[in-house]
Structure formats: C-alpha cells, structure tokens
C-alpha cells in the first residue's frame, strides 16, 4: 500500500514542499516533475531530500533537461524517463499529486 507522490512546483513554494515531505512514509517514491526539478539545485530542499530515509527520490528526465539542471544520482536519488514514470505508477498502489 505504498504511494507514488508527484510534485510539480518549484521549492520556492516552501509550504507545499513541507506538506509533501511530511506526508512521505517508508516505501513511498517522490517523483519530482516540471518546475519541481529546481529542488535539485535548491540549497535547503536538496539537503532535506537527501536525509529522507526509506524514500525513493526520482527526477523526471525531460524536465531536468529542459531546465538545464544537473541531478546527482545516489543511493536514494535517480533520474527516470517517461516510461519509468509509468512503471512507478504501477509499482505503488496509489498516486498523490502535490501542486
């Protein structure tokens, strides 16, 4: 019964990001899309993401490229394409969209 969360707003919307991160439970995936991908280079949010335990963090490739950002992949952080987005939606029993 894990959840795929998507978030599409830039981290300057701190209230949204805080609500979203507080809603994550172990086994969940947070897929960061559209303007959300600025989280990759946002000083405070990028650090908070790296400390989330048991949560998979994914960035949607097309959006990272569009905005010219660099995402550093790690144990819990990956870049995914549209096909993997679909797979993530299948692997979790529901999706929640933060916007």
């Amino acid at each position: 019964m894990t959840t795929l969360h998507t978030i599409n707003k830039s981290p300057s919307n701190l209230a949204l990001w805080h609500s979203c991160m507080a809603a994550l439970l172990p086994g969940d995936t947070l897929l960061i899309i559209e303007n959300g991908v600025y989280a990759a280079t946002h000083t405070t949010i990028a650090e908070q993401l790296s400390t989330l335990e048991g949560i998979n963090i994914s960035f949607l490739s097309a959006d990272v490229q569009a905005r010219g950002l660099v995402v550093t992949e790690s144990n819990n952080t990956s870049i995914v394409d549209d096909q993997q987005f679909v797979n993530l939606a299948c692997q979790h029993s529901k999706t929640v969209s933060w916007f």
Partner: protein
Amino acid sequence: MQQKKILLILSRAPYGDAHAKEALDVALTAAAFGLPVSLVLTQDAPALLLKSQQPQQIQQKNLASICSALPMYDIENIYIETLAAQIQQITLDQLVLPAEFVNEAGIALMIRNHDVVLRF
C-alpha cells in the same frame, strides 16, 4: 467490487481561485456515488469553514454554506491540519460544522489508508 475509500486533501483558500469550490463539488459527487469520502483541510483551506464569511460584495457563492451541507451527504470525516489552523488563528468554535484536528503524521497515515487520494 470492493468499495474504495476516497480522501480529498484541500489546500487552497476560498474565493481567490476556483480550487476550493471545485474540490467540494468532487466531494459531493463522490458521496452521491456512495463512496466513503474523508476531507482534510491543510495549508490555507481551514478558512473555508469559517462561519463569518460574507462573499456577497465579491459576487461569489458562500462556500461555508456549501460546507455546512456536507454532513447531509454523509461526509462526516472532516479534519483540519493542526498547524495550519494555528497559523491562521482558527479555532473550532468559529466553524460551520464539527471538525477534528489532525497533525502531519496523521495525514501521512490517512493517505496510506485510503484507496484514492485527490488534492486540490
């Protein structure tokens, strides 16, 4: 078919945009379809329940009136995010209907325990 439980998470204030009104329409329709609906009001949404609202001059429908009809549609699980209410200094006695407080950890559990989650 197994009955699905729906959780609606509202986050916007009333009147500035159509989100709150359109979320309530989804809640009422889902309930009319016989689906069990729970509502959580987070961020700017707790203000939706303030009974003092008078939107006549801005020519919009009173959303508090719509909210007060929720129990008639068997929507009785209505929660307010504790910190959001505190930040806006909203207390339960100011509201059009009975609501319960829930904290962020409680919302995370509610998301896990429902089958369908819609945010507005």
